[in-house]
């Protein structure tokens, strides 16, 4: 089974062959490295940009304006912050020109903790990204979803930010991407660049299929009756594992993978919360003005009389960064034990 980096790579291959993607670029995105996380190895439209995030975003906007379809990478989302006004501008261009100009562009960037990335390689950006009207914001938690969501991102005529959880980059999926060989090493032999001299290497792409996943559709990864847990990215599999763990004690938790943060699948959340009466939102961005706070607000506004317990948010601590040492990282962002504890506490609340 493909890991998420391979899934993104295969989606981009499909997109440059079939969906009109013209430029896949960013720092170290082209040969020989093919991306800091290898997401762009072997692709035909890749190129290495100057080490200049504002230039990367600005150039992507210009390419989109001139009829191209760029996929630009910011090597770590920690370094996207100096482009915020360009991102704001990209999201607002169609609106401010009263519908004249739209920007079909994808910005992909690895996010979050889990690789011991210290202060400047562990940030999350989902709270900031969801403050940018005009963007569609995507964060997969499985390779198959990464593949399908990237295809949809490349079909979009609006800016899409594709957030890739670093912690899941090397996790293998449980489902085959349509067209990939079933054996792990077979896929690696086809599309992973070799160590050493790569000048004569070319990827051998499997016959991939269009397995697009529409943006804005959540996925229920576990059905349950007592509590709804809504998450995405790195914390999603932790929530699923935590749900299995507490099930041993007779607790029945429903887990929803949001997959798209904007526009998000409110109908899926609403239907689940109406069923369970309890909801826990989990993500790892800092908890003050967190995207999950918006979901809590909407839950209170629209579902107050369906609730059996106060809606809760479990998110990253409001600290300037994630410290390198294991105990510091573990204390900064939700871990599986924190999620289990929050699940048990919420189910224990009685109206």
């Amino acid at each position, binding site marked *: 089974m493909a890991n998420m980096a391979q899934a993104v790579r295969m989606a981009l291959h499909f997109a440059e062959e079939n969906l009109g993607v013209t430029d896949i670029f960013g720092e170290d995105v082209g040969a020989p490295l093919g991306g800091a996380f290898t997401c762009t190895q072997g692709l035909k439209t890749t190129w290495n940009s100057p080490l200049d995030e504002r230039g990367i975003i600005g150039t992507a906007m210009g390419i989109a304006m001139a009829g191209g379809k760029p996929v630009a990478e910011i090597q770590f989302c920690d370094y996207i912050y100096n482009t915020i006004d360009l991102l704001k501008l990209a999201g607002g261009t169609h609106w401010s*020109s009263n519908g004249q100009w739209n920007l079909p562009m994808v910005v992909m960037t690895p996010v979050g903790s889990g690789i011991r990335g210290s202060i400047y390689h562990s940030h999350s950006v989902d709270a900031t990204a969801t403050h940018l009207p005009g963007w569609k914001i995507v964060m997969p938690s499985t390779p198959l979803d990464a593949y399908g969501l990237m295809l949809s991102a490349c079909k979009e005529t609006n800016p899409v930010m594709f957030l890739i959880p670093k912690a899941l980059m090397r996790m293998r999926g449980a489902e085959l991407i349509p067209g990939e060989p079933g054996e792990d090493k077979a896929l690696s032999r086809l599309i992973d660049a070799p160590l050493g001299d790569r000048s004569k290497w070319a990827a051998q792409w499997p016959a991939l299929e269009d397995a697009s996943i529409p943006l804005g559709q959540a996925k229920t990864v576990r059905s349950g009756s007592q509590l709804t847990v809504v998450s995405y990215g790195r914390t999603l599999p932790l929530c699923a594992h935590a749900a299995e763990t507490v099930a041993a004690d007779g607790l029945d938790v429903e887990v929803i993978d949001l997959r798209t943060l904007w526009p998000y699948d409110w109908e899926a959340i609403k239907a689940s919360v109406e069923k369970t009466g309890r909801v826990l939102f989990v993500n790892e961005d800092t908890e003050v003005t967190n995207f999950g706070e918006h979901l809590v607000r909407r839950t209170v506004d629209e579902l107050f009389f369906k609730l059996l317990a106060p809606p809760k948010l479990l998110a990253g601590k409001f600290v300037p960064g994630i410290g390198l040492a294991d105990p510091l990282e573990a204390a900064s962002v939700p871990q599986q034990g924190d999620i289990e504890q929050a699940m048990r506490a919420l189910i224990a609340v009685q109206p």
Partner: protein
Amino acid sequence: MARDAKKMSAPAKAAKSAAKPSAKPPFKALVTHSEELPLEKELLLSMHDTMVKARCLEERLIAMYKTGHGYFWIGGPGEEAFNVPLGLLIKKGQGPAFDFLHFHYRQSATLLAMGEDPTGAIRQMKNTASDPYSGGRNFAGHFSKKEWNVVPVSSPIEVQYAMAPGTALVQKRHGGDGITIVTGGDAGTAEGDFASCLVWASRPRQELPLLIIVTNNRWGISTPYEQVQGVEKISDRGVAFGMKTKTIDGNDPISSYLELKEAMEYVRTERKPYLVEARVSRLYGHSSASGANFTANEADCISQFEARLEKAGMLSAADAKAVRERYSEQFADIARAVKEEPFPDGSTIFDHVFHGEPGRDPLA
């Protein structure tokens, strides 16, 4: 010791000097005004006509602001001698075969020289629903016209320099002679995006067909050039990147026309960047925020040009006066009509957030 103490320290001198923003030493003189006028009379009179047209348009917009028919004015009176030739030389059209235009907000004269209907600028000033550039959403001078590759002008003074390499890259790949033209002011070159533009335009063997323009009026709102720029010529910054550069007299329409023509021909044929610094005046201040009043102590490119045309026997003072009166009346009439046009309805705020999707409140 006591005598030394009376002397002002160097930092104190600098601080005192910096406190006098009106002290604005002139640029070194540029070679311009030749006695002969090396362009056809028809072109010269056409340029004059459009320069006056642009000035009258801006003065009408200012009048609208001052009479409560607009919330904010910003524009380019004083830059007509540069902006009109620029517009005349642009390869106008849609898509990468034509010039892509990343303008800043002082470019109305360029749009008029390209043939734009001035009614649009008046509608934008009045923020009516009929504003063709933003539907009443943006300030005056914030043009956007997809059929001419005029990408939306935005208020940040630097972002266009970061975007321009993208359109130029597509044009380089496309072939032909379409180029990207980006304009900004001298103050905006202090932003990193200007350096980004120089870097991205001049990557070895990947040079871009990009005409990078800086109109240098020696002001950043109220801060004089001398307080922030250590370079005598902004164009010198391009030299470090191996690109062709030139500083020209943007107050001279003839010089501007010839220099821009040469620069554009280079970019169109060589498919490499060229940095032009045009020294211009700013005749009504930065914007309405500083009053939008006429500044008599800067050169007026129109009166200078009229004197030359008159000396050459091409235009009389009466002719010039007639041109000005004609446009002033025309724009007053348009403004009167536009004042009756409706504002956009508040219910439209969700329109065009996303392309291809109907506007709707996502939380409704």
